[in-house]
């Protein structure tokens, strides 16, 4: 919370927004938390909520914030798991979803330019009549905006074919902490070798450099057909190696998700509801790999047959005969077609809630990381929900891993234990030549502590931050500071 006189003065300066700028308690309360694990009754109220409609209004808002030295927190989907939008230093909550216009659809150049407050779901509805889609597809896509995808660098179901948001982003407009609107990137060209790649800095910046207000995205043709299948393996690494071999054969795999046994349980709620039993998975199976192929029907059929031959012939994988199980998983992962009132959340989250360490390690260290997951979840009394390995670099086994557990958020001590688990998992990932986070971001949990991963480059990051945001008003308390994890390595 900031000084009330300052807040009052800032509100007066924001009067140009009319009723789209407010300091009323109910609006502040409505923006008081995201999906990250924190104490059940925790709420961080911003001082002011604003709903700008365009870049120019954002410039004016940031200038008011600069004048009064108030934080600016860009709010988008609000589904983040890392506390990225939590206003724990008060300030101005900038609701970006008021900026949801499609500015240009350019089918000839396979490009779309949008205001970043549009959700990925809405954008794809708008692109569908042109036979196009944005393939960056986080599971949160109903709520996740284009801006949130840029700010958080979140997961994409189809990463193994199309990569993530950065692989689609060609241009962006950002309102920096200097109160200036700056265009970054290379217009509609897919890449550029001039200057520095400043646009790349916006991806995973979590709004700490500025508010991204407009984006130009390279979109792709909607596939004519899609098929999803699953195979079980005796070990995790078998699943990963089988995927590498499948990609090496020259096929284009659209999605590749490797789950441990426990995680499958989380995604088969619809199956259990329908059949009243657990899906049949052999006792010996340690992992289950879901692959999807998309494109023309004959190519998809060929790919399925070829994948089957590789996985079963070379890796002794067993094909999952129950397609209902596979479709249930896909309903949960991509279609978001849960049965109303019976979806996997929030029913599974009444007692405890979803939380994860989201580390990345090279594929050869998967088994070691998984063993650390089992050990550390036990050490910190965390109930295992399971592991999913997403692959999110085009045509490569490129693990982005969710090591998920059910968090007890009933007491401060229990939540603190969860962050103890995240801390040790993060250190382990760095030890295994990996990274602390691949899709949740630093948020208010890894800031400062991430110096353990970055070393001297952490200081360069601070310098970069100061260049974009000299008064540290853009989403402070993130990236360089944590509420949960001490900075000591």
């Amino acid at each position: 919370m900031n000084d009330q006189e300052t807040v009052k003065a800032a509100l007066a300066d924001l009067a140009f927004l009319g009723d789209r700028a407010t300091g009323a308690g109910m609006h502040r309360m409505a923006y008081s938390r995201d999906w990250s694990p924190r104490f059940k009754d925790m709420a961080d109220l911003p001082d002011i909520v604003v709903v700008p409609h365009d870049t120019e209004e954002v410039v004016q808002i940031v200038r008011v914030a600069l004048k009064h030295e108030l934080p600016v927190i860009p709010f988008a989907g609000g589904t983040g798991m890392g506390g990225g939008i939590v206003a724990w230093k008060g300030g101005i909550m900038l609701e970006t979803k008021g900026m949801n216009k499609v500015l240009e659809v350019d089918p000839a150049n396979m490009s779309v330019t949008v205001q970043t407050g549009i959700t990925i779901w809405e954008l794809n509805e708008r692109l569908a009549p042109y036979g196009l889609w944005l393939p960056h597809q986080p599971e949160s896509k109903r709520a996740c905006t284009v801006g949130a995808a840029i700010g958080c660098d979140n997961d994409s179901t189809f990463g193994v074919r199309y990569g993530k948001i950065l692989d689609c982003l060609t241009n962006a407009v950002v309102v920096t902490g200097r109160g200036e609107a700056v265009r970054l990137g290379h217009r509609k060209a897919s890449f550029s070798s001039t200057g520095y790649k400043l646009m790349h800095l916006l991806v995973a910046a979590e709004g700490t450099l500025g508010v991204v207000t407009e984006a130009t995205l390279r979109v792709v043709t909607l596939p004519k057909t899609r098929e999803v299948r699953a195979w079980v393996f005796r070990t995790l690494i078998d699943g990963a190696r089988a995927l590498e071999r499948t990609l090496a054969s020259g096929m284009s795999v659209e999605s590749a998700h490797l789950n441990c046994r426990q995680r499958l349980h989380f995604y088969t709620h619809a199956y259990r509801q329908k059949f009243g039993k657990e899906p049949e998975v052999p006792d010996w199976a340690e992992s289950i790999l879901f692959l999807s192929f998309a494109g023309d029907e004959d190519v998809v059929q060929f790919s399925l047959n070829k994948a089957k031959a590789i996985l079963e012939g070379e890796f002794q994988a067993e094909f999952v005969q129950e397609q209902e199980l596979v479709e249930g998983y896909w309903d949960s992962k991509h279609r978001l077609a849960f049965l109303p009132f019976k979806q996997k959340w929030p029913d599974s989250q009444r007692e405890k809630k979803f939380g994860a360490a989201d580390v990345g390690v090279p594929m050869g260290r998967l088994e070691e990381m998984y063993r650390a997951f089992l050990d550390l979840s036990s050490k910190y009394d965390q109930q295992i929900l399971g592991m999913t390995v997403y692959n999110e670099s085009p045509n490569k086994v490129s693990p982005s891993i969710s090591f998920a557990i059910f968090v007890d958020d009933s007491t401060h001590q229990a939540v603190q234990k969860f962050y103890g688990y995240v801390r040790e998992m993060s250190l382990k990932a760095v030890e295994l030549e990996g990274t602390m986070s691949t899709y949740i971001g630093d948020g208010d949990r890894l800031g400062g502590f991430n110096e353990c991963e970055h070393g001297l480059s952490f200081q360069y990051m601070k310098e970069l931050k100061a260049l974009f945001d000299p008064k540290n008003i853009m989403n402070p308390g993130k990236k360089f500071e944590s509420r949960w994890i001490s900075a000591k390595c």
Partner: protein
Amino acid sequence: MTEYSSLKEYVDDIYTCNRTRCGFCSVECPVFRVKRMETYASRGRMLIARGLLEGVLEPSPEIQEVMDDCLMCGYCQARCALDNLHIFSAVRQELREAGFASPKHEKTANKILDEGTLFDRPIPYRRVGTTPLYLGCAYQSKPQEVQTIVSVLEKVGIDPLVSDEVCCSYIVGAVGFDDEYAQAQARFRQVYGSHLDKEILTVCPTCTATLRDEYHLNVKHALVAVAEKLQDMRIRPLSRQVTYHDPCHLGRMLGVVDEPRQILRALGLEVVEMEHHGIFSTCCGGGGGVLEVDRNLAIEVSKNRIRDAVAVGVSTIVTACPTCQPTLLRGAGRLANELGQFVDVVDLWELLDQALD
């Protein structure tokens, strides 16, 4: 600190939402589509409910206005495992007990309690027949539409019996007048008592849902009865392209989604679906008493629904609700200049009457 006894019943649901934040309910909420603020979507309202319970917020006219700006359309509930609508009704009830209720809602509730009807009726419609048909206040105020419905029912071989009616009083409960709602229900049972043990045909979606879910009566929407008899009928095909707007209570709450489409196709119409349809349809703007307290919001919601039809290239919307049709027509009228076209909104009963021999 206020007790909030009604709201405390839902404390588990409220905290579950607060701790989850999946956002499935938010962006497609028809009110959010206009306001673009979390406060007006279900998960924002759930945080307000928690704020009241914890004393972070106190009842105020501002909170009452926000809670009154809910269409009670149930979109959020269809996307969620929680009891959203009852929670919002409980918040309205708590606000009212704390002295914050819309005077317009008070007036409506009092009118229903005093006169037994929501709208003024020219002459109450009655008809001697064999199958009880409950028209409800909206249709009772529209004699021409009632003639059309009765004509269709006669053509398919149903002999409707329309007797004395009083309002089902849905809106009294929805805006947070719980005690008065109980009184109104008792009066309904008294007036309509002779039919309560029979199957009752209904035409208003809201009345149908209320009589089924709140009064626990054996009701059947008359369109379902018509759909059952349609294959035996002679039809003059109406060749054109339309889209169907599912009224919230008929589609989402009663699950009557297939029958209206079967009828439209049987009438020779090509049905193009809007993005939001079936149980995930979006409100016309006429729900939850919003028309009374925030007319501009209701009109903006209806305009968005018209835009949904235009987005799929259709210029005729068919619906089957005495609230949806005029509300959507109002939106279509306001949007005509911007779109350069007028999107017509037609009642399904009217099409049936035209097409049936």
